[in-house]
């Protein structure tokens, strides 16, 4: 089977032609660099996404603490992650990169703060 989609690794937006068999990639063309191939394989075999969101803070200088996953997580986990993130509360100051939740939604990635937040 052959699939076509645009590579989103950089603004070049190469049109990838991807050959697949039984859900596995057997060949990629149309990419200008190696990243295109990696992306094609990942997008077909195990699509992942960067997840970013917000966690409610209590008693801190801002109301919502921006967070992200330390690595892209499975695309299928995104909605679950968006639900789970609402259950967390941050009550102590945090630093950029600080882990808010380990192995978040069993994705193997951690949820980390993307901003320093001090007390109110």
């Amino acid at each position: 089977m052959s699939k076509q989609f645009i590579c989103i690794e950089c603004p070049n937006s190469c049109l990838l032609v991807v050959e697949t068999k039984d859900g596995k990639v057997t060949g990629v063309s149309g990419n200008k660099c190696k990243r295109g191939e990696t992306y094609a394989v990942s997008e077909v075999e195990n699509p992942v996404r960067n997840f970013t969101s917000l966690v409610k803070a209590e008693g801190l200088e801002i109301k919502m603490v921006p967070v992200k996953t330390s690595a892209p997580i499975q695309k299928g986990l995104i909605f679950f992650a968006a639900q789970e993130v609402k259950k967390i509360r941050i009550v102590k100051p945090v630093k950029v990169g600080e882990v808010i939740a380990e192995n978040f939604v069993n994705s193997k990635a951690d949820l980390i703060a993307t901003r320093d937040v001090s007390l109110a």
Partner: protein
Amino acid sequence: MHDIIIIGGGVVGTAIARELSKYRLKIAILEKEVEIAFGVSKSNSGIIHPGTQNKSNSLKGKLCVEGNKLVRKLAKKLGIDFKEVGQLIVAFNQEEIERLKEIKKEGELLGIKKMKIVFRPWLAVNEPNLNPEIIAALLVPSAGIISPYRMAYDLSENAAKNGVEIYTDCEVTNIKKDKYFEIESKLGVFSSRYIINAAGLFADDIARMAGIKDIKIKPRKGQEFLLDKKKENITNHLIFPLPSQTSKGTLVIKTSDGNPMIGPTAEEVEDKYDLSTDESGLAQVISSVKRLVPSINPKDIIAYFAGLRPVSGEDFIIREEKSVKRFINVAGIQSPGLTAAPAIALYVSKLLKTSGLKFKRKLNFKPFRRKTIHLFQSDKKLMKKIISKNKAFGDIVCRCELVSRAEIEAAIERGAKTMDGIKFRTRAQSGRCHGGFCTTRIMRILSEKLNIPLNEISKRGGKSGIVVKERG
């Protein structure tokens, strides 16, 4: 039991209330909307008309000329900004000059002073952006500008200070008459000896509740378009074409906020809630005003809105009803209602006296109101002074219109409950970014001062919530 219930808290209702608050009477205003001036008044263009373009024998004309004089005095007492900018009614040819002469003559009969016809050389110097094809104009120096909603707010505040009760979000649903009136409303039943119906677009509905069936309000829509304040000096006067049958025409208006305004259209509509604007309205306004001032550019439009004029025949209807004694209709108050408002108030006061209401002056009537401070109007010296007195004047919330936290807080203390209420009182959110930057900040201040959650802050009450919920 009230002596007088005024139904409608627009500029007419509040002007009447303020006038009557001089006397020992128990008065209340019942306003359907969540704040004062949220009906017809909020879309007013703010022109204080000199009285021209009215028939010399009309009630409108008389009250307009008188109102023009009274507004100045009132503005001084209540700290409302009034500016006499003058108006020009323009003519493109000899035939139109003849019409200017007729308008001038009619104006003189009404007692309008200092009018004169000016010609191209004068126009070239004093109004350089005017279309050079305009050969002459009738200059009427007594025309001015005011902020229509701030006038209503200041009137209502002063009225309240003198004992008038003001109930907002208080729609009247039924009126019964026995020895006195029983007025059923959203906030309960009020009883009153007199009713003054100043309900604007809904004056016919209110009249009908009292059994008066011969008043019909027909909304006439006007679309208005505001230009960036950078264009404040595009004209020095209010610019009028020759009037048509239905309106004074499409104008170039100076406003007390600085933004020039172009419009309005005049469209008969059925729906009393139809405040929509459309492309044909814009196209019509642009082509009309470009004929007056060719350099007007649609790119400079930063806001637009529509208002509905409460039209009921040619003239104002201000009378005590013969069939329903002590019920006074103040209906069909379209243009020049804002200008006429203080004169209407006196006229109503006389009607009440004639009808037998006893007037006793209050000894402790407070005629003055301290002027609201606006940072944008202050020079450096005044800024220094007010900021040293109140730190919050140095805390800018609305960057486009230079509105500080102190002004927002003062507006809330003076009765603002909604985002529009803040906008009308302070101008915050009315500039070129349209609240893009300051909305959340204003919501926070409203929430803190009124002690309501952020998700209950609304644009203008009712179901106009800004957001739908708090996030988890």
